[in-house]
């Protein structure tokens, strides 16, 4: 895979995201382009990962898991970060769009995280000899997922939409602290899990591989969040219609 592939595709994906955010008329088709790019990208990743990529120094063929494991866990963290940004934003300025986006990104983040942890567990079997181990990285990632599962469960167990939005935002800000803990856990506690990969520790060919894979899954991530966001918005709109006008003189002004 050429060295510039991840960078070019990242620029492309981000440009499309900006177009999506900036122009309402483009919203109808941009996500389709991104979905198509993601789908093709995933096919490329599968081919690259399974047949083309060099063997990993210590793990040999098992190391090929890296091309799907890393993007999934990263997308999980991106999702939770988007979520917490929305939560903080909602507490500053109550806005239904932020609430919907927070819900969407949390769910997509949980999806990627659950898949990522599953893959990590499968990977652990040949490398560490166990499916699961007392390892800070595993524990903290799972804990982080549980925080967000609790977040979604709480949302579905609360009636009043206004209060639900504020409460879940407040709660998830406290829960987000688990994410930096997850990220740094490999450094704080010398764990079985290898450290965050960087250019010194990883062969350039592999690096290009998983970076490109990350971009492909980022495109899919964006599509998922957008579609999930539309679902949240339509649920909100069924609950948030204003009552019909009583006096004709009153101007229909709404602020939530």
């Amino acid at each position: 895979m050429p060295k510039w592939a991840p960078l070019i595709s990242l620029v492309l994906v981000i440009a499309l995201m900006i177009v999506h955010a900036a122009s309402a008329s483009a919203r109808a088709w941009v996500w389709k382009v991104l979905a198509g790019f993601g789908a093709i990208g995933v096919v490329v990743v599968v081919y690259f990962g399974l047949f083309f990529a060099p063997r990993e120094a210590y793990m040999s063929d098992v190391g090929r898991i890296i091309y799907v494991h890393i993007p999934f866990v990263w997308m999980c963290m991106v999702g939770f970060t988007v979520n917490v940004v929305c939560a903080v934003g909602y507490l500053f300025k109550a806005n239904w769009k932020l609430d919907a986006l927070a819900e969407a990104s949390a769910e997509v983040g949980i999806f990627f995280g659950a898949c990522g942890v599953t893959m990590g567990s499968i990977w652990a079997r040949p490398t560490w000899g166990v499916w699961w181990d007392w390892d800070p990285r595993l524990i903290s990632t799972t804990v982080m997922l549980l925080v967000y599962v609790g977040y979604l469960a709480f949302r579905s167990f609360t009636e009043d939409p206004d209060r639900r939005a504020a409460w879940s935002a407040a709660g998830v800000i406290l829960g987000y602290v688990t994410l930096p803990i997850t990220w740094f856990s490999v450094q704080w506690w010398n764990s079985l899990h290898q450290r965050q990969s960087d250019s010194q520790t990883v062969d350039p060919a592999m690096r290009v591989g998983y970076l490109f894979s990350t971009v492909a899954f980022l495109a899919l991530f964006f599509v998922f969040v957008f579609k999930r966001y539309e679902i949240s918005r339509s649920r909100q709109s069924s609950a948030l219609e204003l009552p019909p006008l009583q006096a004709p003189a009153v101007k229909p002004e709404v602020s939530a």
Partner: protein
Amino acid sequence: MKRFVFVAALWAGLAFADIAPVPPPAPAPAAVHPEGIENVPTGVIQGGWGYVYACYIVAIGGTIFYALSLFARRPRGSPGKSGPQS
């Protein structure tokens, strides 16, 4: 007061990042491996394609499954921008 608390939180966060990693004694590598991998003298794991395939299946299958679930839950009725004004 708010600002003070914010600074305190920031400071605490830095302290968190500063925790000296006093390593617990490194766990001994698993002595017995069900597939006899410990017999490989170089320590390079050989084979294990089954695990690789399993992971790729989880990744692709999970993605397709989630896409389908989003499709199943898609908003029906008036499509597009039916959400309330912020």
